[in-house]
């Protein structure tokens, strides 16, 4: 396509140019030829005119001489003088025959026709002749051109003198076609002679072809003047006009015609030669254009191929185009470009696969190497290394210090590598060492050796920095068979290692699954409320004094569509960690109110406690929201107790107190949950607007008379009562515990001994049954 269009364009331009040149040349030659033809024709006409004139003069001289010979003949004079008509006529015929004159006649001096040799001279012609004869004679012979009858005659006169003039002898010949042909023979010109008389059709003598002659006649008839050109269908004639004679009422004119066609025919070979040269030049230029285009288009094709190769990423094969012209320069440039692109691409590839800071392979390259080992089925161990105190180092030494540490670390690590092993920086402070042909246990040895090396502090400026390096180990094929799995599991092991003093951990089977479950729970928890997967269970709380149950704690349950019932101990910490705990408490508050409203409708009165999160305690809008819900569900605030944790308050005591006071103003009861596990002081407890304490179940579960727990529980109960707070013991599972609590005047007990948490309907049913106080069994 490229080639053909290029060739076509070059050929087109060349041929166009050539056509223009040839056209101009042809026009110029044609114009010059035409001028030459016309000039030549004109010259021929001029010459022809002179020849024609000369011929007429010659003929008239001959006639004149013949006429004078006769006129001077004494016998003839005698005959004329004596009026001997037969004699005269015979003499006239005789002399006319001698010189081949077609008209011989004798006129009297008065112009009357005396004798004629058969020529019928009409009166008009006679009158014309008479008038001309009356003209004073000039020097030389007189020549009369006259139309007589249907013919034109050339006449000369001679006076018959005896010795005074007694008559006029006229001799002449018809200017007829034979004469015209004779002229044509001499001059190679066509001749037309016309006599025009008033009132009579013109008399024509012409050597022109019939068609041209008719055309000429028509023209003269129409225009009245002689044309310069006569053009019939076949021929073009240039004409020269000669007025031969004129008189009153008549006019004789001659036209000499030169056929331009004949003259042009002389130039026809020139035209043919120009045509031949043109065709030759055209052919040559076409061939030349093709050759030229080929010589250009082939290297262009090669260059295009090279460009395509480069586009495909093949940088090996250079363009082999050795030329001294611009295309050669272009080929060199293309080769340069190819090298440049290859170099930059190598650089880019290096950058893409290497860490800029340390120059180590990056995660991508590490995964690739891991992948190739897996593909090859080579056992390989992953040593995942993290610097636990890197954030601290960054803080104390600055960003550049941190970078320096990483570079030093990478150098040290690299120094320990065996041949075939590789080191990569994954991100931040995390490195990966790939140990070829290594299983988990031999990797531990390597890791241990590494750790010994890394114990030596790094010197940064004036500071000695000790690195807290943790290492996780995973091995192929034991711990996984995809690079991603292996890397993730090595990392899990590294994270787990943080928990061990040895800071080294081999991946344990199942760790990965637990983490996967966590991730899934975190992800699904956000949508649990709106998808109706959440529900509340209610655990009855026993009023120890009167043995009745009027309270319950609402406990959140999550029915996961795939994982089944998820325990709060699993998902609540996840929700707290990921910040979705507020969603849950919000849902719990509303659900509890809705449930209370429902129970109210059925005449069931219960006081329900629920847990609110640390985040809720920082939300100053919470009291207003709760108030709105209370109004909406028409629930008495006394039916609600919000359980808070000490740590939650401690995080931002002022804000938390503000929220707690707000809640108190709504009329909601407040309880401190898990009391005893935190570090809260009684003084702080006193500042909080709480009415209740919940002793953590860890103190309650295995309560007996002599344990330390019993001291704590008993003293807590007493102290609380002294502060005017009620006390709730959770985790009551054994009857003796309950007895002890009863003895120590604990207000409320909660635990499996009383009932496990129940769904709302079950709780309602349970509540309707008469409760059998377990205390009876104790006693």
């Amino acid at each position, binding site marked *: 396509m490229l080639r053909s269009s290029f060739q076509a364009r070059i050929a087109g331009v060349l041929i166009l140019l050539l056509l223009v040149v040839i056209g101009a040349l042809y026009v110029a030659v044609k114009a010059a030829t035409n001028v030459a033809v016309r000039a030549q024709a004109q010259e021929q006409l001029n010459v022809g*005119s002179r020849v024609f004139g000369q011929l*007429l003069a010659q003929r008239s001289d001959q006639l004149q001489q013949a006429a*004078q010979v006769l006129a001077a003949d004494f016998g003839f004079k005698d005959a004329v003088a004596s009026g001997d008509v037969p004699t005269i006529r015979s003499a006239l015929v005789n002399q006319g025959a001698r010189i081949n004159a077609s008209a011989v006649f004798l006129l009297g001096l008065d112009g009357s026709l005396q004798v004629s040799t058969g020529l019928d001279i009409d009166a008009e012609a006679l009158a014309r002749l008479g008038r001309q004869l009356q003209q004073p004679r000039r020097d030389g012979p007189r020549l009369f051109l006259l139309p007589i009858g249907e013919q034109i005659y050339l006449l000369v006169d001679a006076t018959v003198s*005896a*010795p005074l003039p*007694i008559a006029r002898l006229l001799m002449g010949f018809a200017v007829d076609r034979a004469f015209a042909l004779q002229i044509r023979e001499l001059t190679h010109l066509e001749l037309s002679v016309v006599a025009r008389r008033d009132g009579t059709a013109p008399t024509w003598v012409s050597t022109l072809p019939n068609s041209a002659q008719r055309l000429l006649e028509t023209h003269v008839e129409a225009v009245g003047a002689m044309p310069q050109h006569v053009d019939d269908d076949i021929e073009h004639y240039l004409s*020269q006009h000669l*007025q031969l004679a004129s008189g009153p009422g008549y006019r004789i004119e001659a036209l000499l015609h030169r056929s331009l066609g004949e003259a042009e025919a002389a130039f026809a070979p020139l035209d043919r030669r120009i045509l031949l040269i043109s065709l030759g030049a055209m052919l040559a230029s076409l061939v030349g254009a093709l050759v030229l285009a080929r010589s250009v288009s082939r290297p262009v094709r090669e260059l295009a191929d090279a460009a395509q190769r480069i586009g495909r990423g093949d940088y090996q094969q250079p363009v082999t185009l050795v030329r001294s012209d611009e295309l050669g320069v272009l080929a060199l440039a293309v080769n340069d470009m190819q090298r440049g692109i290859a170099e930059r691409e190598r650089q880019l590839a290096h950058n893409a696969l290497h860490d800029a800071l340390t120059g180590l392979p990056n995660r991508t390259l590490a995964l690739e190497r891991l992948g190739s080992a897996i593909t090859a089925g080579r056992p390989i161990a992953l040593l995942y290394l993290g610097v636990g105190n890197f954030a601290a180092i960054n803080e104390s030494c600055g960003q550049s210090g941190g970078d320096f540490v990483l570079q030093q670390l990478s150098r040290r690590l690299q120094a320990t590598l065996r041949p075939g092993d590789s080191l990569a920086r994954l991100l931040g402070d995390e490195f990966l060492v790939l140990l070829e042909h290594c299983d988990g246990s031999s990797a531990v040895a390597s890791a241990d050796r590494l750790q010994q090396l890394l114990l030596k502090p790094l010197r940064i400026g004036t500071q000695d920095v000790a690195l807290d390096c943790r290492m996780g180990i995973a091995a192929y094929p034991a711990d996984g068979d995809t690079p991603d799995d292996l890397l993730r599991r090595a990392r899990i092991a590294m994270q787990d290692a943080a928990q061990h003093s040895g800071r080294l951990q081999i991946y344990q089977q199942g760790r990965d699954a637990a983490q996967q479950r966590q991730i899934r729970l975190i992800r699904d928890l956000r949508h649990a409320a709106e998808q109706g997967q959440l529900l509340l269970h209610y655990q009855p709380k026993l009023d120890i004094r009167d043995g009745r149950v009027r309270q319950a704690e609402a406990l959140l349950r999550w029915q996961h569509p795939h994982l089944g019932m998820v325990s709060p101990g699993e998902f609540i910490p996840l929700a707290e960690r990921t910040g979705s705990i507020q969603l849950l408490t919000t849902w719990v508050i509303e659900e509890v109110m809705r449930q209370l409203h429902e129970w109210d409708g059925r005449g069931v009165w219960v006081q329900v406690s629920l847990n609110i999160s640390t985040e809720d305690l920082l939300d100053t809008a919470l009291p207003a929201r709760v108030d709105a819900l209370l109004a909406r569900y028409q629930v008495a605030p006394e039916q609600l107790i919000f359980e808070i944790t000490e740590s939650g308050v401690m995080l931002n005591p002022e804000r938390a107190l503000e929220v707690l006071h707000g809640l108190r103003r709504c009329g909601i009861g407040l309880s401190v949950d898990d009391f005893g596990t935190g570090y809260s002081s009684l003084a702080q407890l006193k500042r909080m607007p709480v009415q209740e304490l919940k002793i953590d179940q860890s103190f309650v579960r295995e309560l007996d008379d002599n344990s330390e727990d019993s001291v704590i529980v008993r003293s807590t109960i007493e102290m609380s009562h002294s502060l005017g707070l009620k006390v709730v013991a959770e985790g009551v599972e054994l009857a003796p515990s309950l007895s002890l609590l009863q003895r120590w005047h604990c207000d409320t007990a909660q635990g499996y001994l009383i009932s496990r948490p129940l769904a709302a309907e079950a709780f309602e049913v349970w509540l309707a049954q008469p409760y059998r106080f377990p205390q009876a069994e104790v006693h």
Partner: protein
Amino acid sequence: MTVCNSRLFSLALFAALTMVSSAYASAFQAELVDAAGEPLGDAVITLRGLADSPRAPLPVQMDQRNQQFQPHVLAVRTGTSVSFPNSDDIRHQVYSFSPAKRFELRLYQGTPSEPVLFDKPGLVVLGCNIHDWMLGYIYVTDDPWFAVSDDDGRAVIADLPAGRYVVTLWHPGNPDLLPQVAGEIQFDARVSSQRFVLGSPGPAEQPAPPAPSAFGEAFRKAAEDAAK
């Protein structure tokens, strides 16, 4: 030399007339001029009286000299014999096709044997067959009194009796070569000279030798005009 020319003859006649004029007759002198008043030579004046007595005509000569007729115009009375002596050393062939007298004298030298008798009045135009330019006139008249003017236009008739005369004039230039009647005159001794005007005589016709053709030139001119 036995041959007189006409002028000598006239002078002789004039002298004779002058001598006798005092007695009963005298010479009549006519002064002939053309319309422009120029004297006209070779003009003929003839007078016819009311009572003329016939006089015997005298023989006269028409000479050919220097290839010309001498005199150019000769006036003779009807019945006069004219001899045509040839004074040239070449031969002439004198002829006339005039109705008044047709004759032809074959090529001759010297004086031909027979004089030619002009017995009818009229004009006889003389030519030479071999010399076309030779032209002579013989005016043959019935009138008894006549004379031919000399180069000064004077024509003298000697011994003209007094009386009344009808005057006729002729000149080669006359239209159609016809004589012209000039009215009557009363001649007596007191009137010795009279002026006559010839109507409109043109120049006498003279045949010219053939000139070279000029047509070619005229034609060339026409051709050049056309070329322009």
